């Protein structure tokens, strides 16, 4: 599903963010990406998501080489990928409901269908009472959950989650991990970047550890 071959990334004027990264994530896999702050986890996810271009190497998603993608193909790809951003990236002038509905609006679902799906995911994440609030009027953890809801509502074939539980309490963290395992069981490929070592220990899944932009450890 996701194949990286000798991927390099240098942001201009700084030491390389990623050096010679190669790995393959199969369809339906569940992978943790970990490593200290500044290791390059977010950068790696952004490359897969085509919001940054690699300086070198090849990235193949679902059989297609992303290096030749134009804006149209990138938009198409993103409609299949759910991305939970580390900084949420919610639209501050839209309510939680509209933020979560946006990916479905983009795909062009029917209003009735959108309503059903959005309500379902919001209530699963305990946000139904915040549906009509703007992101700046809800708590940090609620924002994070809204961002998770937006990524999941379109039933993506790939889920990329960047530190999805940094603002959540242990109980919520558990229920969200269960949700991730659940959609993974239904066939979605999941890649989660996290610092939370207890989480990684508990789930005992394949884990790729980065440090200074290099893969220093891989555990199946």
């Amino acid at each position, binding site marked *: 599903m996701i194949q990286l071959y000798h991927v390099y990334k240098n942001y201009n004027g700084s030491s390389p963010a990623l050096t010679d990264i190669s790995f393959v994530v199969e369809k339906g896999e569940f992978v943790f990406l970990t490593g200290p702050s500044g290791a390059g986890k977010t950068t790696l996810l952004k490359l897969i998501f085509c*919001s940054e271009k690699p300086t070198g190497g090849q990235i193949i998603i679902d059989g297609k080489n992303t290096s030749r993608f134009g804006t149209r193909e990138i*938009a198409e790809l*993103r409609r299949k990928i759910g*991305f939970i951003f580390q900084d949420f*990236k919610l*639209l501050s002038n839209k309510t939680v409901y509209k933020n979560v509905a*946006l990916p479905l609006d*983009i795909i*062009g679902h029917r209003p009735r269908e959108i309503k059903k799906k959005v309500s379902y995911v919001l209530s699963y994440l305990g946000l139904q009472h915040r549906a009509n609030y703007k992101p700046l009027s809800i708590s940090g953890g609620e924002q994070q959950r809204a961002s998770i809801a937006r990524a999941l509502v379109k039933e993506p074939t790939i889920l990329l989650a960047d530190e999805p539980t940094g603002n959540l309490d242990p109980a919520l963290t558990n229920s969200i991990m269960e949700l991730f395992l659940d959609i993974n069981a239904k066939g979605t490929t999941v890649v989660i970047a996290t610092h939370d070592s207890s989480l990684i220990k508990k789930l005992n899944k394949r884990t790729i550890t980065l440090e200074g932009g290099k893969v220093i450890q891989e555990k199946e």
Partner: protein
Amino acid sequence: MTISLLIRRILFFVKEASHNIKGNLFTNMVAIFTISLALTILTSFAVFFINMEDMLDTFGADVQVIVYLKEDIRSDSTSPMKEKIRSFTEVDSINYVSKEMAIQVFKNELKGQKGILDELGANPLPSSFEIGLKKPFRNSDGVRTIVAKLKVLEGIDDIHYGQEWVDRFTAFLSFFKAAGLIIGVFLLISTIFIISNTIRLTVYARKEEIDIMRLVGATESFIKTPFFIEGLFEGLAGAILAFIMFNAVRYMLLKNIPASFSSLINIPFPVTDFMIILLGIGTAMGVFGSFISLTRFLKQG
């Protein structure tokens, strides 16, 4: 794209745009107000210029060539002469003034210096033709052409045409047209820039929103369309406000100036046409403004 999807899209975009307008109400109001001011200035200038041109055209009717006839001209030769002159392409109208009519006019003009009239015995004034010119010839060149043609005619004593006045009028007309054109073009460009700059600033303030939309998989047209609708709305609302402001200024002027000049601030078209033109220009500029603002942002990545 199926029909039902298309309809859904259109509904979505309109809802989206109206939501954005409400959500960014303050920015939108500021933009609409700026657009309306720029449009009012442009409209006022255009209306003033068109009216002024009309007024100058009426002045142009004063450009006249007077042909004084010889004392000894045979009375049966004036009529063919008149027809001959009338056939010149430059001539719009021709009018015969007999000696008697001439002295009458002279008497009226000289009311002040009665002394002169008392001294005059026989009528010393010649008969004449007063020749009006067609519009394109109401200027120095036109006058010179017709004078050259008249000079060769038999029975003519002298030709008068207030050279100084015609030259001045011609000069003023060319000044007026050149100045109007240059200032008009400058104002038009300024208006386009002010409107597009204003919309640009409102779009720029929402750069983050555009970036996020893109990250969620929105296509360019999906992102742009609500902005176009918003620009269209801003332009339209700005034009309506401009129409109101223009009429307010016009009303104030009408209250404060002598009636004889009110023609200068007439609206030179039917009011509905005027509104349609104004709204058309406003919306076109609004859409164009958002178009060039968005091109900039959607290029980057």
